[in-house]
């Protein structure tokens, strides 16, 4: 589906053909659920949030600005819902993550320099980061949005997004390599 086709579908939905929205759900649901799963770490919740995002997008479709990609707008809605969910469950999740993460013996810098980290180790370290850093990492590395698109999704200036991504990487590096 091209962007032009997508815009045509959106026009049809706005003129009353609600069943056309199915094409948008089919196109974006997989990427959105995976994105939310990487933020929330629970498939059931990720699917609930994704579903809520689609419903909100449908109900507010008349407010969609065609200057931006539909995916950007959809992810913005979804991330707002996910952010609220994560803030509500932050305390318990953070404690659980910290307990899991505290290693018995962190490697020295010399040992760590060439260390190849497992996916689980990196994931666990990412989960200790603040929510906004996790969002930036997910959007940039895993969903392939550029700085400008992330700025739209997170409603922050592009410079702020660059700064957040830089800090997220530094914090992650410290966590993995045991530097303070």
């Amino acid at each position, binding site marked *: 589906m091209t962007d032009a086709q997508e815009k045509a579908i959106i026009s049809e939905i706005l003129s009353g053909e609600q*069943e056309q929205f*199915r094409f948008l*759900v089919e196109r974006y649901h997989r990427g959105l659920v995976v994105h939310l799963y990487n933020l929330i770490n629970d498939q059931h919740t990720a699917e609930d949030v994704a579903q809520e995002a689609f419903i909100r997008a449908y109900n507010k479709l008349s407010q969609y600005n065609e200057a931006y990609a539909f995916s950007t707008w959809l992810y913005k809605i979804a991330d707002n819902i996910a952010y609220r969910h994560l803030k509500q469950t932050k305390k318990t999740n953070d404690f659980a993550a910290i307990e899991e993460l505290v290693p018995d013996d962190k490697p020295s810098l010399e040992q760590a320099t060439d260390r190849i980290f497992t*996916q689980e180790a990196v994931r666990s370290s990412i989960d200790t980061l603040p929510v906004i850093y996790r969002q930036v*990492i997910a959007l940039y590395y*895993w969903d392939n949005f550029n700085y400008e698109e992330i700025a739209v999704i997170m409603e922050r200036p592009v410079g702020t997004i660059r700064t957040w991504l830089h800090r997220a990487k530094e914090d992650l590096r410290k966590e993995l390599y045991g530097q303070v």
Partner: protein
Amino acid sequence: MDKFDQTIKNAKQEITPSTTFVDATMGKITNKQVRNRWNIKLWAPVLGSLAVVVIVFAVLSSGSNTFSSKTPISKPSKTTSSSSQTANSAPPATGADNTSLANYLGGVASSMNQENTDQNSANQSVNDSQQVITVPTN
């Protein structure tokens, strides 16, 4: 993209969404559309509240009509306690004179009469209330 960037990129977790996701989402959207079209979502609580108010008002008004026509329930006399106090007063000591004994017995008789009066009054109240209850209400 350096080696560390690649490490982060590789940490992405992949899952497969449930196969019913699209249909379930569209089902919710379709239902929502129907509800919004008829404004049921908006009006249901308002109509429900109005119905409750009407029912409560009807019950209250029918109840007040029934009881307003009844004879008020008479309360038992409050003199029981004072007469009982008289009856329960200490009997004259052994060797007391006849006058004291007669006074004491007179008080006892008066108390018994008062007790009977109170009992009759209470019985009358019970009868009154039973009479109110048995009156058919339409």
